[in-house]
């Protein structure tokens, strides 16, 4: 007697802990193997782009915090750069350095969260995640010194940052920079040669460079496939052209490479932070910009390298106090494009791992 099996659709529903938010996958399984899948999102849609059309340019900074809520600073950064391009404002030198420091701290925090949750998806229950969150807590303490909030910073303004860093911030960040490399060594000891991690991630979910480029993927996911593409290098903004850092690149484009690229990027972020803290000039932190800014009619697009990839803001002004149109090119949303190619033919347990290695954030996908 033989068993008659037929493909079955399973709903990995919007409230699943390893979908990183309210993300739904309708997967067609043949036994345990993924045959086809259809992502369903929009559960967290808040209409940020529409809300931006009825607020003044400075007030939209508070909206951008809510996009990628793990690294709010990079969202502020991209938006503020777009407004400066639109209104032809020159930010102050010290403001630009402070923005770079804040953005790199945010990148560190986001990569720690990404690594921790990726290991949680692998089944390393809570231990590495807690180590990552312990260090992230110190970054959030630094952010609290800088701008008085721990998650939704609203730190940047067109023309710089809203206020200079307090005097006790500089010794604190020096201490952080001296201690963080030891912690990263510890994390690499824990992860890089672990047999379980190697067996579960090496050669799993390979994304060829050609497919990644065709799908317009960006960020660590693209770099893990062996493409040297970093907005901080190819289109430098603020003061990144004066700082020395390398772009870590993977070779195979599997889950292991995506994890390792993030770990090495953290070291590069520490390098950037050290240089920025050393070179920061004195002066005002903010150029005088009116609150109800009225840019001349026109359009502007500015993009930054956020922890997830290329984050861009496209703004159209009609001369009023609020933008006529605000379009957000969010990296997490576009990094979901090759999901079907990545997951077809893998098993259910690998689906969770591959999905976790892309590191999406639902606040940004649904906007």
């Amino acid at each position, binding site marked *: 007697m033989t068993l008659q099996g037929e493909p079955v659709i399973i709903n990995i529903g919007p409230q699943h802990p390893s979908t990183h938010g309210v993300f739904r996958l309708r997967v067609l399984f043949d036994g345990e193997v993924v045959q086809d899948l259809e992502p369903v999102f929009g559960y967290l849609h808040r209409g940020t782009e529409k809300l931006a059309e009825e*607020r003044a340019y*400075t*007030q939209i*900074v*508070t*909206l951008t915090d809510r996009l990628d809520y793990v690294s709010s600073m990079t969202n502020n950064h991209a938006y503020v750069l777009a407004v400066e391009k639109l209104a032809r404002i020159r930010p102050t030198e010290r403001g630009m350095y402070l923005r770079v420091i804040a953005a790199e701290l945010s990148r560190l925090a986001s990569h720690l969260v990404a690594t921790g949750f990726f290991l949680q998806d692998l089944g390393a229950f809570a*231990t590495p995640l807690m*180590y990552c969150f*312990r260090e992230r*807590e110190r970054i959030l*303490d630094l952010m*609290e*010194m*800088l*701008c*008085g*909030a721990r998650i*939704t910073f*609203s730190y940047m303004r067109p023309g710089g940052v*809203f*206020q200079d860093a*307090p005097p006790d911030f500089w010794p604190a960040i020096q201490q952080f920079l001296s201690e963080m490399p030891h912690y990263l060594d*510890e994390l690499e*000891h*824990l*992860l*890089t*040669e*672990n*047999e*379980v991690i*190697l067996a579960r991630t090496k050669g799993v979910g390979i994304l060829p460079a050609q497919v990644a480029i065709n799908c317009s993927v960006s960020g660590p996911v693209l770099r893990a496939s062996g493409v040297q593409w970093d907005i901080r290098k190819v289109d430098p903004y603020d003061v990144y052209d004066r700082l020395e850092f390398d772009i870590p690149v993977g070779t195979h484009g599997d889950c292991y490479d995506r994890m390792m690229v993030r770990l090495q990027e953290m070291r590069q972020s520490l390098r950037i932070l050290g240089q920025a803290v050393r070179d920061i000039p004195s002066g005002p932190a903010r150029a005088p910009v*009116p*609150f109800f800014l009225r840019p001349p009619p026109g359009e502007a697009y500015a993009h930054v390298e956020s922890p997830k990839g290329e984050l861009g803001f496209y703004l159209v002004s009609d001369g009023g106090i609020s933008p006529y149109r605000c379009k957000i090119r969010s990296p997490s949303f576009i990094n979901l494009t090759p999901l079907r190619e990545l997951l077809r033919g893998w098993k259910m347990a690998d689906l969770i791992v591959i999905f976790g290695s892309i590191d999406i954030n639902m606040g940004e996908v649904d906007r």
Partner: protein
Amino acid sequence: MPYGLGLLKGMLVTLTNFRRKPFTIQYPEERVPQHPRFRGEDFVWYEERCTGCASCAKFCPLGIIRIVTRPSGMQTQEGEKYALEVFDIDLARCMFCGLCVEACPYDALHMGSGFERARYTRKDLVMTIDELRRAPKRPSTWFRPQLEGKGYNPHTDRPLEWHEVGRHQAPSLADMQGRWVEER
């Protein structure tokens, strides 16, 4: 590399962490030290400094500050033309971005530093003018360089009076008119 050595290395890391002091804070008994710049809930409002200009209500991205004034017949030069009847901050929808504090030209409104204002009904989450008058005056140093320069800490230091939190003396009428013409 022989099989199992990587696992042992990982176990060694967890073992060293096992000997360390736990970094968990037992919240209600112990507290995480907050920075004086922390943007928190209980807004500090000085009625003596407030003129009812409603800049804060205008700059709020959500429009949750409600201000009703009536002419009080005071001198314009003294900076007190209007008497306040209603000054409500709807904390249920507030996101503590601090733009109202940034907007205040007279340093009458400051962020507080609390975070424990849970209530059972939405109505109780609205800070009315009476509650703002009664609240302890411990302003956060967020966007107030004059307090930060003094090294004020709202968590440990005494409450401040209205004449201790200003940036400068009240501007003259000519200064005010000049500012409005230049900045539109």
